[in-house]
């Protein structure tokens, strides 16, 4: 449905997007993930025909965006980063105008506009001027504008930005519901959003794709070796160091790192060989030394850690900032 091949976009000497390729199948929701300035918006702008690529090509709904832009645009709905609203127009007039320029036939326009307003919960603001709406309503009118002409492809640049938690949930539900007959690309920097709504993720950093996979695969792939968090109460001077030494001696353990210390209580992050469960041995070792075993649990890498790891310039082993919730 959407195919991006070796897409490069340069602004003068600055390369915003560098040789990006990916595919999106019909009915799929693809999450586009990356830090600010990674090239998400630029890629989306190329896909929507807002700007041409410097190199490479993009095919949307079977039409090359450079060769047959009008055909591709007719089949694309786009919500830019800032919803493109005319402040002096009422919501209904605005949507009627958008319906007209998107090529919705005159007879259907009113019905389509009403339908889109209902789906995005803005019907109660139909006669309000766009400029007077709250951020959340603006965002949703922007969404209404994107789905109005029932496009095959929806490209949403941070669709839930500025919404309150309830609206975020409703919008995500709406996006999921739309996925059946629309193909969706959405960009975000909110990670739970990706794991909740998207079937596949493209992680982009400094204009380059660093990973394309399902959220589940990504978390397990980067996971690599298994990591445990172990907290022990080991009184006495240098207890932490001796505990670390003792734990390193446990068979199967590959690396021990101290993650936090509070008085005599020390937390360790322990990596073990892949596929080997060392929890029993660890517990036995702690008990054998007469220390108190306070906590022992596997550390699962969240998508957030994957993201941080993939997008940080010098990738470091998992001993660094692993979340402890």
């Amino acid at each position, binding site marked *: 449905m959407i195919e991006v091949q070796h897409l490069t976009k340069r602004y003068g000497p600055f390369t915003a997007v560098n040789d990006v390729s990916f595919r999106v199948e019909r009915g799929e929701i693809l999450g586009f993930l990356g830090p600010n300035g990674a090239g998400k918006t630029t890629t989306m702008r190329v896909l929507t*025909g*807002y700007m041409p690529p410097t190199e490479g090509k993009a095919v949307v709904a079977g039409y090359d965006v450079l060769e047959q832009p009008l055909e591709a645009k007719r089949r694309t709905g786009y919500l830019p980063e800032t919803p493109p609203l005319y402040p002096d*127009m009422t919501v209904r007039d605005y949507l009627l105008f958008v319906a007209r320029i998107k090529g919705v036939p005159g007879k259907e326009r009113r019905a389509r506009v009403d339908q889109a307003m209902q789906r995005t919960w803005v019907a109660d603001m139909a006669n309000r001027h766009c400029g007077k709406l709250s951020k959340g309503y603006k965002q949703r009118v922007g969404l209404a504008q994107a789905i109005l002409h029932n496009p095959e492809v929806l490209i949403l640049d941070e669709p839930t930005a500025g919404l309150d938690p309830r609206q975020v949930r409703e919008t995500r539900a709406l996006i999921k519901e739309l996925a059946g007959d629309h193909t969706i690309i959405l960009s975000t920097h909110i990670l739970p959003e990706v794991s909740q709504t998207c079937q596949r993720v493209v992680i982009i950093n400094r204009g380059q794709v660093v990973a394309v996979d399902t959220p589940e695969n990504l978390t397990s792939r980067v996971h690599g070796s298994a990591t445990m968090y172990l907290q022990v109460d080991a009184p006495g001077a240098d207890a932490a160091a001796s505990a670390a030494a003792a734990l390193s001696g446990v068979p199967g353990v590959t690396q021990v790192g101290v993650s936090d210390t509070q008085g005599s209580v020390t937390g360790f992050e322990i990596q073990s060989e892949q596929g080997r469960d060392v929890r029993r041995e660890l517990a036995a070792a702690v008990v054998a030394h007469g220390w108190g075993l306070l906590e022992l649990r596997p550390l699962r890498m969240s998508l957030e850690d994957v993201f941080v790891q993939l997008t940080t310039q010098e990738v470091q082993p998992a001993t660094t900032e692993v979340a402890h919730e």
Partner: protein
Amino acid sequence: MNNVLAIAHKEIKAYFASPIAYIVVGFSAILFGWFFVNLLLYFDRMALQAAAGGPDTLNVNEMLIGPLLQNVAVVLLFTLPLVTMRTYSEEKRAGTIELLLTSPLTDVDIVLGKFLGAFVLYAAMLAVTAVHVGLLFLFGQPEWRPILTGYLGVLLMGSCFLSLGLFISSLTKNQIVAGMITFAVFLMFWVINWIASFAGPTMQVVLNYLSITEHLNDFTRGVIDTKHVVYYLSFIGFSLYLTVRSVDTERWRG
């Protein structure tokens, strides 16, 4: 064509939803009225002198309507930059240009739509002056043909200003910058032949030909000279072409 009309319709709505349309039309009407009264009083005095043995040919077309339309040109110089300065700048600032450029519209659709929208507002502004001219028909017998050609000339000249203003607006995000540059360029096209009398013979012809107001004179005398029509139409065509190119360049630059 439907796309052009859609954009034009939106533009007109935008003019009338904001105070721009009312201010432009309203204040222009006041200024036209003032010029009209002034010229009418002058004509009246001339008529009295003629009765007392002054010049024997008095022509309401030549002495009143012609100069009135010339004065309209002065008003345009100040008001039309206000009409065109927002056309593209505002869309760029508000990000709505992104909607237009990602909709199934061609750049030509957008430019022509915007031009047409501004033209309708301008025509509304001129329609107000027709009230004054209409009054003359109640009390005298002016010739209607020169009036018609005069209006045609003013419409063409204003359209030149509009198309040029549209182009300048497409170059910047800032309305004030667009407005000021437009005003300066309009003024330049106006006064460009002021130094003609000091220039050499070739330069003189060139400068006079470039002057946007120089071409209006024949129209107000009731003459439709293709030379002037060609000048105005090519001016409009070229400015609109530049606007289309400018919008396209903007895409490539990002």
